[in-house]
């Protein structure tokens, strides 16, 4: 079975003064479908950059990032938008819920952007909210929810399109231990149960311990355990 994600000698550097700052040096790795992979590393080590490269919101300086049979970095901006919409779900450190949309509408939004039937989308969103225990808060605006609750809404939103891949950037980074544990449990359970790939960036050992594999970035090198 071909890997879902493949980093093929991916390098990334940012201009900084006269000499560019290298974040990734010829990183190569493969992640299989259904795998839960954590990426760890020090602040500024390039963890989030790796995630952004997979999402197609940043481009490698050299090398390719493959999602299935497509090199994400070689796609047009529009194709990347559609790829994110249809095949990826996102969970952010600061939740990034749309403040002007109610909880249910936040979850429905990606499906609606994809042009799905509104009734189906609402049914699925309600089911997902039920799963994360927030159906009762469906009509609330995000600012009425706690941080943990907001992140649970974000998980539901990430799964509304039933994407094969979920990208999570420090999903518990802005939560207390208890809320973080609840969120992580939900995220793991919902992605594993559906056979999805979860690629998450984290500082936390506890969170990383839940992953099938932990990759680390040290001095720009991606260290991949076999």
């Amino acid at each position, binding site marked *: 079975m071909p890997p879902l994600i493949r980093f093929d000698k991916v390098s990334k550097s940012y201009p900084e003064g006269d000499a560019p700052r290298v974040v990734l040096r010829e990183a190569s790795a493969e992640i299989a479908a259904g795998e839960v992979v954590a990426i760890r590393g020090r602040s500024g080590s390039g963890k989030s950059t790796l995630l952004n490269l997979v999402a197609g919101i940043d481009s490698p300086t050299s090398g390719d990032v493959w999602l299935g049979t497509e090199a994400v970095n070689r796609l047009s901006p529009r194709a990347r938008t559609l790829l994110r*919409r249809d095949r990826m779900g996102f969970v952010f450190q600061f939740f990034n819920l749309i403040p002007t949309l109610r909880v249910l509408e936040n979850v429905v939004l990606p499906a609606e952007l994809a042009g799905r039937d509104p009734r189906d989308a609402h049914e699925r969103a309600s089911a997902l909210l039920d799963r994360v225990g927030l159906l009762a808060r469906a009509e609330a605006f995000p600012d009425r929810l706690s941080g943990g609750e907001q992140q649970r809404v974000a998980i539901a939103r990430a799964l509304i399109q039933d994407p094969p891949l979920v990208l999570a950037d420090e999903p518990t980074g802005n939560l207390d231990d208890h809320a973080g544990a609840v969120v992580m449990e939900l995220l793991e359970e919902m992605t594993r149960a559906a056979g999805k790939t979860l690629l998450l960036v984290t500082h936390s050992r506890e969170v990383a311990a839940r992953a099938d594999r932990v990759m680390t970035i040290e001095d720009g090198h991606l260290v991949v355990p076999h």
Partner: protein
Amino acid sequence: MLPRTLLATGLRDLLRRPLHTALLVLGVALGVAVVVAIDLAGDSARRAFVRSTDAVIGRATHAVHGGPSGVPVAVYRDLRRRPEVSAAAPVVEATAFSESLGRTSVRVLGIDPIAESPFRDHLGGGSLRAPGFSRLFTEPAGCVISAAAARRHGLALGGPLRLRVDDRALELRVLGLIEASPDRAAALEALVLLDVGVAQSLLGLGDRLTRVDLILASDADPSGLAATLPPGLRLAPASEQAQTAVQLTEAFHLNLGALSLLALVVGMFLIYNTITFSVVQRRTVFGTLRLLGATPGQVFGLILAEAALASAVGTLAGEVLGYALGQGAVRLVTRTINDLYFVLAVGDVPMTAAVALRGALLGMGAGLLAALPPALEASRVEPVAALRPSTYEGRARVLLPRIATVGLALALCGAAGLGVSDGVTAAFASLFAIVLGTALAVPLLTATLSGWAAAPLGRVAGSLGRIAARTVERSVSRTGVAVAALMTAVSVTVGVSLMIASFRATVVNWLELTIRADLYVGAPSGGGVRATPAIDPALPARLRALPGVADLETIRRVRVASGVGEIALGASELGATGGGLYRFAPGSEPDPWARVQAGSIIVSEPFAHRHRLAAGARLEIHTDRGPVVFPVAGVFYDYSTEEGQVLMARAVYERHFDDRAVSSIAVHAASGTDLAGLAARVREAAAGRALFVTDNRSLKREALRIFDRTFAVTDALRLLAVAVAFVGVWSALMALHAERTRELATLQALGLTPGLLRKLGLLESGLMGALAGLLSLPLGALLAWILVDVINVRSFGWTMELHYEPWLFVQALALSLAASLLATVYPLWRLGRREIAAALRHE
């Protein structure tokens, strides 16, 4: 089509930020209100004019006009028998001043009720059964007025109506009231109807008429009929009168319209500023939306949808506000038209579909246009913005040189446009391009100059000075636009003020030159340039015989037909001053006044401009002896009318016209004469006549009062533009404070006292105000030059000396500083009430 949920994010954002939405709506509403008010006033005035002309012309197809002495009644009798004439009606028409009808100018119309019905049945021709109308034949001084006018001014049937026509004070009796349909009521309000015979007798016309209205048979040949008319009479289409008057006010309406657009342009700055702020604040939201699959087009559409909704609400509010303002504006516009052009009564100012549609298109168009750049900016937000802090200011600074270059190119195109076309509309387009182009360069100048200001401000106000200057520099996407809006409004104020001051100074000089006699005698009938008051021709001789009178000058003002249409003709009899009263433009023949005495004419500068005539040209004038071609000896400076006028010597006039009346008399007192005593003697000599006798100084004062009144609308518009700019600065400061919540809270936590916080706010807004004020000065001076030397010349043909009054520049600087400092009051108050701990947690 935008997904419903995406649309909901935008719409709810508008509801969640009431202040921001209110600013958006206000920007559109103020702009639309001013445009609609001016449009409504102009439109109502134009329609009122058309209606009143229709009311007077009725169904006539043609009219036979005489010169100043009119059409003999015999000609009317002859015309009635002509086979090509289906119907003919005699008309006597004059402009009068009526104290009974609200101290306004009115039209006096003498008609024959029997001959009337095919022409103007609404005036009474069809109402002969009504008791008042039949009594018109028998009562020696009976008149009919509109029932609406009678009600408005408390006049009753059988009651008196006082009029002053030429030098006659008349007391008529109201015998009938016309109940007109609502659409005609306003047109009839400034109309007094008399029997034609009564009118002839009261106005001293003998057996002459002003004109004969005709309905020609459908197969009649007008030119054949015209050829058989006696010399001095002319057959003209009935529509000619309306066309002449509408053309007269075209430039006036165009200038007013252009000024009203200014408010809309300044309103656009406000919309742009507010939406840009909203985009900056929601960058993370847009990044998230993009990450979730929203396309750039969808984000672009979202911002435009928000702008469209706010613009629609603003347009609606602007239409309502404009309607209310229009009621006031129409009074100013009508007063100016009555002062300068012709008698007009505007009864109502209804909102018409055309005005509402123009307002709606401009409001929606301006709103969407101003929203385009921020919408583009929002659509370009990368999904990564959901994860990274804002980089907008960095990008804005990168864009500044490009925007400034576009602005410079636009301004240069505008400047080039001034030389390419000689039309007034093109000149206004160029002026707008220059203003807009300069405004686009302002953000770069704001960033650069505030950067330079950091060191000196630091020396004066320490760290706070440096912070203030660097904040204005760093937040240039907000501050630059606010400075640009304020600079635009203030520079236009400077430009227009300089233009008015220059115009006024030129008029004062001209009045000094032309009003040199000691006393002036005239008939106080209103009606602007179309009034041709006549004074008893025997009066000059009586005045000349009075002790203390050294010399007399007379002028007869009439309207006659010419090769270039109806014109204002003056017949001047000068005393010892000779042609010294007139200053001639370059190109005039040597000693033009001597040539005038010999039979040439001179034309005023606006006349020469309007009809493209110069010294050496020839002009055909229809005299009582038939058309005569006069050589033009020179062009003289004259600021009395924008229509312009032609002057000939009195002796020449009398050779060609039978009219012997004069319109006004200038009396030069012998040296040492007591002027008050002489004025009393003059009044005594004119006893029984409704004449005014005024001294030199009062006449000049009256002329300047009318001048100042003419620019009242302009003053109101300028104030509105500054008000919109004020709101622009206010919104920018609110945005600035909102963005710097954490920064300012940190400063407060570090010990910035409320007083120092206020100082910081005032330094920032003061710097913005000072920059806007300083930048507005050169642009204002340039605008004044364009207004005076290009637009004014193209609109009116007047040469003016441009006076750069220093106090106007000081005033502009003060205005700019005051507007920006005042705009700080509320944002600072709000800042002072905030909880520092909560602000420190602000994201």
